[in-house]
């Protein structure tokens, strides 16, 4: 980062600092370094297999990179177990929906409140005092999320029975119910039709504006990326080849090369 940047930009919320990750011989991430700034929407783009999901997995503690640090609000989170990282205020959705399929929408979202609740086996089983109070209190929060995402009519449905698009929305809702400070979304619009994509883009913008949540989003749809993100990081073969505003990234010769020099040019423009 240049000196001028540090004057004009606020302190980063997350610093991804020379992250290196390999699986046996496969080098998934190579010294990847960039910052995520509070309250922004940042996109990570790149061809298939570039290492985008691997990077999110490093942030949420599912993968442990061999090199580098990831600092969240100043604190290195490498080596912390996933549930503790969640407690710091980092939530995410998955590329292949990972919902609790045999539970209702409400229960899925209530699980998003897990870290904010306290009751355990005893108070839960006896359903006295705290457990009961907590259920009602946090249900009210969950209902706000339900309203925001416009899923009132399916709140009591089993998640496994919902359409793909709705499942994606519920997964966003579960992450949102955590009331996170940093929200990581892995291809939230993949496989959606145009209308569903527009809805999803609107929700992401709403969340960012209403709650001030920082959003990191992996997306292949360049139209959406350029429209809604403040900054874009481009990965290719595990390396960060460009990082900047959408306009900067779009005109970057390395990015143009990366996309035009390949079979699958900028996917789904």
């Amino acid at each position, binding site marked *: 980062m240049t000196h001028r940047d540090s004057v004009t930009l606020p302190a980063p919320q997350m610093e991804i600092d020379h992250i290196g990750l390999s699986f046996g011989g496969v080098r998934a991430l190579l010294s990847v370094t960039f910052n995520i700034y509070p309250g922004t929407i940042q996109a990570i783009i790149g061809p298939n297999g570039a290492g985008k999901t691997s990077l999110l997995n490093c942030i949420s503690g599912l993968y442990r990179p061999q090199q580098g640090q990831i600092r969240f609000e100043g604190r290195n989170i490498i080596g912390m177990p996933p549930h503790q990282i969640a407690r710091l205020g980092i939530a995410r959705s998955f590329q292949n929906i990972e919902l609790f399929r045999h539970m209702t929408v409400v229960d899925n979202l209530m699980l998003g409140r897990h870290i904010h*609740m306290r009751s355990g086996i005893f108070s839960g089983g006896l359903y006295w005092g705290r457990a009961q109070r907590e259920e009602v209190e946090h249900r009210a929060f969950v209902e706000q999320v339900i309203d925001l995402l416009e899923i009132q009519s399916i709140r009591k449905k089993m998640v496994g029975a919902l359409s793909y698009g709705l499942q994606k929305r519920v997964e966003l809702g579960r992450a949102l119910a955590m009331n996170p400070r940093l929200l990581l979304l892995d291809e939230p619009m993949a496989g959606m039709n145009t209308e569903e994509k527009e809805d999803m883009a609107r929700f992401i913008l709403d969340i960012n504006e209403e709650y001030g949540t920082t959003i990191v989003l992996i997306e292949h749809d360049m139209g959406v990326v350029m429209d809604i993100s403040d900054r874009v990081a481009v990965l290719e073969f595990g390396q960060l080849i460009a990082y900047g505003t959408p306009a900067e990234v779009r005109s970057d010769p390395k990015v143009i090369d990366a996309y035009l020099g390949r079979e699958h040019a900028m996917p789904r423009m």
Partner: protein
Amino acid sequence: MQSGTFHTTYASDVSLRPYWPQRIRIVIVLALALIFPWFADRYWLNLANTIAIAAIGAIGLNILVGYTGQISIGHGGFLAVGAYTAGMMAVHLGAPMWITIPVASLFTAAVGAFFGLPSLRLKGLYLAIATLASQEIIIWVLTHGKLLGIGESLSLPRASNNLFGLPLDRLGNNDFAFYWVCLVALILTVIFVSNLFRTRAGRAFVAIRDQDIAAQVIGVDLFRYKLLAFATSSFFAGLAGALTAHYRGIISWERFTIDTSILFLAMIIIGGLGSVSGSIYGAAFMTLLPAFLSNLARALSDVVPNINSYLPYMQQGAFGLAIILFLIFEPEGIVKMWRNIKDYFRLWPFSY
């Protein structure tokens, strides 16, 4: 006819039995349970008590297998821990059952958490084998534990069947008296476990079953909750074991072998995985089936003279057949069949 149910507040929406047809059903079942012992003979009381105790054990196993998705074929071992803990307290300390039963349940919970440690590393079939090993270890300790003062079998003093100073035989014969103890224990278990699975900890268990990676990422501590699931499950195994010890008055390790573990697995598979009421149906089914078969054999013994010598094989065969038929035709168990029947009548006459 019951159409949709609407709730006006979140408080009523999250409450356990939110609408009146269910309340009526509960009142009817409770009333029948209260009337039953006054008309039943000791044979039927014994069956009812056996079912109630088995149901508590099955609910315990279902917490682990059906709700949390951790396969265990060592449940019999935990029943043994509960039975022997209660038995030894009664024999060596002269403790009454209102002390031995809760202590035995809590102790079994601790033992269960310990033997749950492999679940942090192992999944599925591998975990099943590890739980089998824990059962073998427990049985080994029971049969070789002379140093600990454990005999292979234990006779509990009658005087230990005492509730807060009231000797149980004041209530009537052993079967009648224990009917009330087992009924109360079962009702408390059902309420506790039903509550558990609509609150935070229970939801975390189910989350681990459905998607353990997502569960971690939303903040569920896998380590803690898997051990808690083992502990909670074993608590109810311990309760069932301790009740058995006091009810039967004599216990021996043969009652708690792998056969028992598999019998309990069969109960929850047939009754319905991840269902409290299913556990009860499964326990009833697996208890009534052999009773039904031996009654049948007795009725047929005039026609088929040697039938009684085949009875054990018939019972084994019927168990196997029942499990296979359920796995093929209703893998979700009796609880699902019951739901289908209810749906049929709810939509009747428009049932298509």
